[in-house]
């Protein structure tokens, strides 16, 4: 038998930010045998790969609990391989795929399929959530138990919300048996109807049907009442309105097991971006108002937002070139998420690197119950090395993702991923 050669990597003089262990100091870090072997000053080791991280941030690899890698079914938009390559380029060492594929991930073999494609891609760790209901149709429970055994890290019918309150109650009760999270895309169809952007003056002027914030808030409020009854773990995806922030904040104050995530676009962009009918800004939930953006940022500052998640949603250019009404919702962004978060949160003084990285590492890890997002000695060496001040221009044509529906094309980004190590192996290294 060939003995597997463990690669050693010594990361020298970096600013190690490990929010979970409350570390923020300049130090060396030695990776050996897939794990963090030593942390300390002036580490030396013979015959190792050395990364000079002076002036750079060394942090636990980022975790994105909301991505769409489109496989199985829509591999012209993205594959698990291309999505994984994009993820490590963005500094992500773990991602959670959503089950709204074709066919959907609503039984154990589909979970296993996603895992297998993730292993074959050999880039980032690929997790998956299973559907709450069969075929995501909202009618009957999917085989949550068997999917949990296969490794699903939660359940969601993402793409749409689970409309029926009784069905949601059932799902929460049943999911409690496995202590896995129910993750909800909050959107009440009876209110959202055929809306394609935020409801209000802007939609009126553009002559586009709007989605009232209530469509999100009503379902979120309803679900929280169900959580009150069931005590099931509940996660609200991509919250977008000031009202949702208020509902979550109150639920947390009452000690309910509720978490939520915010996306780069809802922290940065408003409905004003839709002015020219550019479909790259069509997303669900829609871009809201400056007041909502401020409210989400405030929620980051006071800890109400648990996780930052991209909702990376690749679409074909030919479909995004349709009329605004007909084009699909979603935008890609996992490769440029880090500088976007920096712009939204650090540059605006909302939080510091440590607090921001917490929402990108151990806090999302806790939602999906995986032992990740920490860099203590003995932890698995999922690591990102970031140049916090490097400037670059976002160019979707250079993305590893197969899709180009990026609303940030041409933006000047500050903050760059230099290295991404997954289980001690360098899986991404920035060019030049």
């Amino acid at each position, binding site marked *: 038998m060939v003995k597997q050669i463990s690669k050693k990597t010594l990361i020298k003089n970096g600013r190690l930010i490990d929010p979970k262990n409350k570390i923020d100091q300049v130090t060396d870090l030695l990776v050996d045998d897939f794990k963090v072997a030593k942390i300390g000053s002036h580490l030396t080791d013979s015959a190792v790969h050395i990364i000079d991280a002076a002036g750079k941030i060394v942090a636990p690899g980022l975790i994105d609990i909301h991505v769409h890698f489109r496989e199985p079914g829509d591999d012209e938009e993205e594959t698990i391989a291309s999505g994984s390559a994009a993820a490590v380029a963005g500094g992500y060492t773990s991602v959670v795929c959503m089950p709204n594929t074709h066919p959907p991930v609503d039984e154990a073999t589909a979970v296993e399929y996603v895992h297998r494609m993730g292993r074959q891609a050999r880039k980032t760790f690929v997790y998956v959530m299973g559907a709450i209901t069969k075929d995501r149709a909202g009618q009957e429970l999917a085989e949550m138990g068997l999917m949990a055994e296969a490794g699903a890290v939660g359940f969601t019918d993402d793409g749409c919300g689970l409309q029926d309150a009784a069905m949601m109650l059932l799902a929460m009760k049943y999911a409690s048996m496995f202590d896995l999270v129910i993750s909800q895309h909050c959107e009440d169809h009876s209110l959202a*109807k055929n809306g394609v952007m935020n*409801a*209000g*003056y*802007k*939609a*009126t*002027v*553009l*002559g*586009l049907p*709007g989605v*009232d914030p209530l469509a999100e808030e009503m379902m979120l409020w309803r679900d929280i009442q169900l959580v009150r009854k069931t005590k099931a773990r509940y996660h609200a995806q991509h919250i977008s309105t000031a009202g949702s922030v208020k509902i979550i904040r109150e639920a947390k104050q009452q000690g309910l097991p509720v978490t939520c995530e915010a996306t780069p676009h809802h922290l940065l962009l408003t409905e004003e971006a839709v002015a*020219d*009918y550019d479909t790259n800004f069509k997303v669900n939930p829609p871009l809201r108002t400056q007041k909502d953006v401020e409210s989400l940022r405030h929620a980051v500052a006071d800890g109400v937002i648990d996780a930052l998640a991209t909702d990376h949603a690749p679409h074909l250019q*030919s*479909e995004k*070139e*349709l*009329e*605004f*009404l*007909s084009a699909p919702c979603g935008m890609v962004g996992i490769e440029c998420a880090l500088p976007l978060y920096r712009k939204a949160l650090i540059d605006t003084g909302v939080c510091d690197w440590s607090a921001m990285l917490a929402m990108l590492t151990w806090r999302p890890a806790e939602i999906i119950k995986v032992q990740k997002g920490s860099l203590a000695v003995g932890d698995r060496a999922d690591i990102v090395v970031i140049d916090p001040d490097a400037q670059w221009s976002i160019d979707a044509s250079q993305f590893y993702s197969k899709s180009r529906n990026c609303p940030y094309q041409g933006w000047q980004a500050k903050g760059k991923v230099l290295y991404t190590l997954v289980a001690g192996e360098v899986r991404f290294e920035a060019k030049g």
Partner: protein
Amino acid sequence: MRKNRKFQWSRKHLIGLSDLSRKEIEFILDTAQGFEKFSRRSIKKAPTLRGKVVVNMFFEDSTRTRNSFTLAASRLSADVIEFSKKASAVSKGETLIDTARNLEAMGVDIVVIRHGAGGAPKLLSRSINACVVNAGDGFHEHPTQALLDVYTIRRQRGSLDGLKIGIVGDIAHSRVARSDIYAMTKLGAKVTLIGPPTLLPGGVENLPVRVSYNLDEVIEDLDVINMLRIQFERMGGNPFPSVREYSHYFGLTADRMKRAKPDITVMHPGPINRGLEIESEVADGPNSVILKQVANGLAVRMAVLFLVNQAATQQGKDK
């Protein structure tokens, strides 16, 4: 054409009136006035667009607007291609952009587009080189309708400055209402929107208009009343309980007309639902300018086609 001699029209597309200045709107109206005379000549043709190709791309049903554009283009001696497609599931067939690019490859100079999706003309104007004229998109804008509306009012009243204009009905789903609001307020009129709250658009408080739910209360003050058609095809969700109840509150009946100023100008973009939003007696009565609107539409559309083509030609020369 006589006034505003120094003004230079520079837009090769007419997508909407929201970003047009008062001066630009007046320039179109002045140009239209010049073309109105053509209709009274024995030979109703000008050589202005000779050798140019205009395509009428209508993705929604239309009689009035389409015929008006066709006639306007042929009076200017353009060749006209008629293209129609009831496209709802565009993604299944050729996309809008591909269709337009194909037409452009045939040498089309001006695309007149009506489409069910708001923003489709804007999308088109970004994707092709030809001039794009919006003939109504979703419930976004219908600029030539609003232009003929203000043209008609100006002909009737001399000026819109200080006029009190009521727009009644389904404002939420009306592209005519949106374009009318921009054109009328820019020309100095005071606009009141009248309809049930369920048919008023979101964020209406940010528009430069007043709002009333009570037609009887405001009709006494109005100089002009524009009755919108109830667009059953766009509504959905029963915004009012019945046609009977709607007419009771918002229909322009002969009885209600008694409360209005005797010289009130009655308008309607057509097609009218007789007995629903307007009674026949009123529609055909002495205050009605509904057919004048149609006649004026021709002159306005000739002016628009003429101006966008002129701007495109000028921009071509400048390169």
